């Protein structure tokens, strides 16, 4: 089976490494590394596993971002992807999910035929989980999100999709969009030979003109949503000390507070 797979990935700042300055209540970004978004690594890994099984599989990794996103694409190539493409242009900057999906769908049309698009469920900087489904909509293909298990059966795909209280087993044909979560697999490391090969590969950079997107469909000005205000969450003040006549009363008082806050 010669499958064509496209993996959508994003380079993100490692938000777990971000600290808040306790005095100024601002972000400390110093030394925060840029990484391949976690869920996207799972998306790529699943594509690579298909390639392990069907050697003729061709994997293209696609990203949109600033020029330095190339570093992440090299990492993807070193993990075993065949090809990588960077959509990058000032005109694409500030795109919301609607505009981002327009640009990425245009890039996918330019890549040509495909059987499966894998994407991560969401990126850790925006946490929207919207771009995958919106690309699928623009390309008019079916989707399954939150995929935790993947299997090809005859000409169809059978996946497990996580729900809050269980899971669904879903059959979906190709071409389709699947979004991966951590439970899907354990991403592999780059291999040494792969790193060497990867740095030799050319990574095409496609601007808005190359993508053939209309400037009313991409970028900050065209995006339906925009940021009105942004701020740091309020610094935590000292909390409330709970007291009571006996331990039981204190425990009850705490539970009432938790219920009041909808925490439980």
């Amino acid at each position: 089976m010669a499958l064509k797979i496209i993996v959508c990935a994003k380079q993100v700042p490692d938000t777990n490494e971000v600290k808040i300055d306790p005095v100024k209540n601002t972000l400390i970004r110093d030394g925060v590394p840029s990484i391949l978004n976690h869920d996207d690594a799972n998306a790529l890994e699943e594509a690579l596993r298909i390639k392990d099984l069907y050697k003729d599989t061709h994997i293209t990794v696609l990203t949109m971002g600033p020029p330095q996103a190339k570093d992440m694409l090299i990492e993807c190539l070193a993990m075993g992807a065949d090809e990588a493409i960077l959509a990058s242009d000032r005109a694409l900057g500030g795109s919301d999910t609607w505009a981002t999906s327009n640009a990425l769908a245009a890039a996918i049309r330019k890549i040509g035929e495909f059987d499966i698009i894998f994407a991560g469920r969401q990126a850790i900087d925006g946490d929207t989980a919207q771009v995958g489904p919106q690309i699928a909509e623009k390309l008019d293909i079916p989707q399954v999100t939150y995929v935790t298990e993947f299997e090809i059966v005859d000409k169809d795909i059978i996946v497990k999709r996580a729900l809050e209280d269980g899971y669904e087993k879903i059959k979906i044909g190709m071409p389709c969009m699947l979004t991966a979560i951590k439970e899907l697999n354990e991403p592999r490391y780059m291999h040494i030979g792969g790193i060497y090969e990867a740095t030799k590969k050319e990574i095409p950079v496609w601007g808005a003109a190359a993508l053939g997107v209309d400037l009313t469909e991409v970028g900050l000005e065209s995006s339906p949503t925009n940021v009105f205000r942004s701020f740091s969450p309020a610094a935590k003040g000292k909390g409330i000390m709970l007291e009571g006549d006996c331990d039981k009363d204190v425990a009850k008082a705490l539970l009432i507070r938790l219920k009041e806050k909808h925490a439980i």
Partner: protein
Amino acid sequence: MAIKVINDKCKGCKLCIKACPFDAIDMAGKLAVINEACTACGQCIPACPFDAIEKCEERAAEIVDLSAYKDVWVFVEQRAGKLMNVALELLGEGNKLSREIGDRNVCALLIGHKTDHLIPELYACGADVVYQIDDPLLEKYTTDGYTKVMTDAIREYKPEIVLFGATHIGRDLAPRVAARLDTGLTADCTRLDVNTGNYIQYLNKCTTLDTSSLDPNSEDKNLKQTRPAFGGNIMATILCPKHRPQMATVRPGVMQKLERDETKQGILIKVEPAIVRADIRTEVLEVVKAAKELVSLTDAEIICSGGRGLGDPSGFELITEFAHAVGGVVGSSRAAVDAGWIDHSHQVGQTGTTVKPKIYFACGISGAIQHLAGMQTSDLIIAINKDPEAPIFEVADYGIVGDLYKVIPCLIEEWGNAESLFDACSKTAM
């Protein structure tokens, strides 16, 4: 809107680069330059000591006729004939927004098959109108089926606002619907405002943001959608000024349900779905309800951590029992790991795992800086410690000074009674 650097004023100090969450500022010689990663979040503006960065507000607003769009809609998600809790929370929030806009209908959009039994509950929880879309093909959720009937209904009835619970299904459906309608969507909101005065009050109470440029009496009726971004490190308020409907997914457990009113009646509008089997390109083979598997520390909603204050390794038996009772995961301080009481995989802190659960119980943990670094962004922190001077109390939302071996068993015993305790308490308050 866009962020611009005023070249004459920029001194090349790079403070803006440090403030930018998105790596969107580069240096070109001695000037800061905004690159395409910019989301116009505005974090750099106050960071600049030279007032060299500005946000260009919208060009003269294009005239778009949005007046045809009315009413607040809630997608009332049901699974196997049972309403999700978040659907009722959103009806409550919908009522608040409707009052702020000026008496719009709050409408429940009920999609499924054989859902009649849910309608009285929707009225009782605040729906003025129920749009019911019923078809055997809609019995189980499918992206294709639900997207089709929902976009058709939105096109016909033109709601101004559409809210979804940010559940796995809501987050699957909403982006698809928004893309088909070519409108904006804001994910995982934790606060919604229409009234600018209320929004200013919220900002003043919860942030240090300068609100002097906002007019509390503004006639602006745009939905101000506030959400955490950047791993919860910043909050952003998002607008969708020129497209309708304004759509948002909202985190479960954040908004308030209305007091149930069984006498309340509403209007039922049955919408005939235009759907055939071929519209649905996936097949749900099986829906399985499963008890939650043991989750890792990073995914846990509740963490019960123990520290040196446990006294000896057997203390973790109580912590484990506690975690089991509350549906949580066991964590620990470094001191307890170093003492050999528990495996390193449980360690929370700078050299362990960074966690952000909904509730973090710190039991017998003094609160060393390195531990705080790994848990202080938890939604709620509860500290139980003998020593009233322990630094952990400085970051705790609720503190209990006492013997954890006495307090925790009480918590385990009463945990299941929280609802009735709360009800009893609110009754006596009234």
